[in-house]
């Protein structure tokens, strides 16, 4: 069990080699893969996420830790697949129709991946159909939409409506500079995040 704590520590330090070493050790000690994932990798990334949210660390440092997490995941994935353990959740994410802004969305993708989510990024300028169809195909837990323009944020409503029509039960999370919680409430999106750090918390909360 000792190794699990050390995994989190190495991950917080952004040391991919150490993370791998401790994951390997934990696997050899026959620690339950779910425990390695939850109490090692994800617990470490949760600390990183909180530090980032508090402006204590910078984006590239978060990404270094996320990379360390992925090197641990590589070892763990075959075992997780065998025991039927899934990623934290699956999110289908994109920028809505008419909108080409993607930096914010890309950051949210990186943060979610870092936090243990399976992220399906469908890109920019995406119509409602592609959000909903991809979500159904991937059996996604969450549909994430980004919009940076007041002229395109209105397109989010169509996705919410189409999801209802198509019986897609993924929860909807939205974000982007012009958006607000009240806009999310208005269109019936279950989650709104003003920044990438909050996006992880909100997504986790939707599970």
């Amino acid at each position, binding site marked *: 069990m000792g190794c699990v704590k050390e995994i989190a520590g190495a991950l917080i330090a952004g040391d991919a080699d150490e993370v791998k070493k401790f994951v390997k050790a934990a696997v050899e000690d026959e620690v339950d893969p779910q425990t390695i994932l939850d109490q090692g990798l994800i617990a470490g990334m949760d600390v990183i996420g909180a530090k980032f949210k508090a402006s204590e660390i910078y*984006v590239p440092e978060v990404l270094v830790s996320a990379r360390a997490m992925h090197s641990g995941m590589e070892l763990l994935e075959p075992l997780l697949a065998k025991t039927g353990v899934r990623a934290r959740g699956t999110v289908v994410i994109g920028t809505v129709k008419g909108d*080409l802004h993607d*930096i914010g969305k890309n950051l949210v993708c990186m943060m979610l991946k870092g936090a243990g989510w399976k992220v399906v990024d469908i890109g920019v300028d995406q119509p409602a159909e592609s959000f909903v169809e991809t979500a159904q195909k991937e059996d996604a837990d969450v549909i994430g939409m980004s919009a940076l323009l*007041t*002229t395109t944020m209105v397109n989010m409503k169509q996705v919410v409506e189409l999801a209802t029509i198509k019986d897609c039960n993924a929860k909807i999370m939205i974000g982007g500079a*012009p958006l607000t919680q009240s806009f999310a409430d208005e269109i019936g999106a279950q989650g709104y995040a003003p920044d990438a750090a909050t996006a992880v918390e909100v997504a986790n909360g939707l599970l």
Partner: protein
Amino acid sequence: MIKVDTKYYNSPFFAILSEDQLYRIHSASLEILERTGMDVHNKEALEILGDAGAYIEGKRIKIKPAMVEKALASAPSKIVITGRNGNGKVLLERNVVNYGLGTDVPKQIDPYTHEVRLTVLKDIENIGKVVRTCDNVDFNSYAGLASDVEPELQDLYHFKACNTYCDKPYFTTAANGANMKALIDISAMFAGGYEKLRSTPSLIVYQEPVSPLVLGKESAEVLLTCSEYGIPIVFPPMVQMCATGPATLAGALAQGSAETLFCLVLHQLKNPGSPFIWGPYVSQMDMKTTISTYGGPVLMKSQAALGQLSRFYNIPTFGFACCTDSSDIDVQCGVEMFWSAFVNALSGLNLCHDIGYMNSGLIFSLESILLSDEIIGAVKFFMEGIEVNDDTLALDLIDRVGPSGNYLAEEHTLQYFKREGWYPKYMNKKTYEVWVRENKRSVKEKLEVRVHEILEEEAPSLISKEEKKEIDAIIKERQKAVLEAV
């Protein structure tokens, strides 16, 4: 007696890069264009570039240095924009700095409740009202996004609202080629025809490629339409270091410069000699908060470099002045607004826009226009330098007043005190006791009071009933076309 070999400066000067550093950045841009190229999502643009001898690999277009040199040679080094009624002038050429507003801010600080809320059309009318009163603001723009009109036609409604009380040169974006054409139609109506509009344009258009290295469909349409009609256009990529460009300023500048040069080439191929304003936005993405910074020293370094680069290219350039990342009229706002206006002037940027931008371009306020006006006034004053001649040295006067005398009642004082001094409208110059007695009024409060005065003053509409009718007809026509398209 003659004094020889004396050199007088009319203004201070400043440089951040040496000639060799400039050349390396230029050369790097050429390499990016020839080696990496840009993706182009517009058919006409692809054809024009292909016909001119660019290397075509599907959507990826690579450009030879000779094409860039040809475009640089045909682009004008001087552009004049005059307000639609002949009032106000923007002169874009070497060593001339103009200041004005930017476009498209989604939220406004309400001038009465101070709540941050979505912009409405009335706010945009009010912007014109305020800009009209600002002597140091050379061009006007809508600086907001009216949330109470159809999004597809916002730019047309903005034109009408923003120009109602102000007829300074107008800076605008256009959503697509068709809206651009409608804006040209409206402006041609004021100018008395398309030829007149071409010879004395009253508007400047703003559109953007997508960093890194993509030219989108609609923005290419606007670029080509402006080129065709001879309407001045600025086409800056938004290079955010660490995100849409390298983390290093040199690389980000080279990439932004390459993207702008690419668009210049296309623009000049469509209609050689058409007016183009050069200059990317290159700034830092804040790696703690992920905002795209509009205030602070990184943007200022890039602005300084871009001023030099544009003089090297001898094409008017774009600047970012009086913008801030702060969400309030506070100390940070004052610092960031002041020194951006200052660095823009020192660097000789020509079309310095976005004055009054707050919260990195997401919030706007009427007070921030007035604050910018005051700041630009101070910068102008500084840039006028020091006049050194017999009269200003005042040696006879100094001798006459002598030790223990004073200069208060001197004719020379009366003659010069205003010109050689600076008198702000809003900054506090009162003694502490007087300031306390007058309720410790802050700069912010004074700005608010002045905004209310301006909004409540009667202001004549500068668009006649007949002109309004014509604008409405053009908007209606676009409305019909938009409806038919869906």
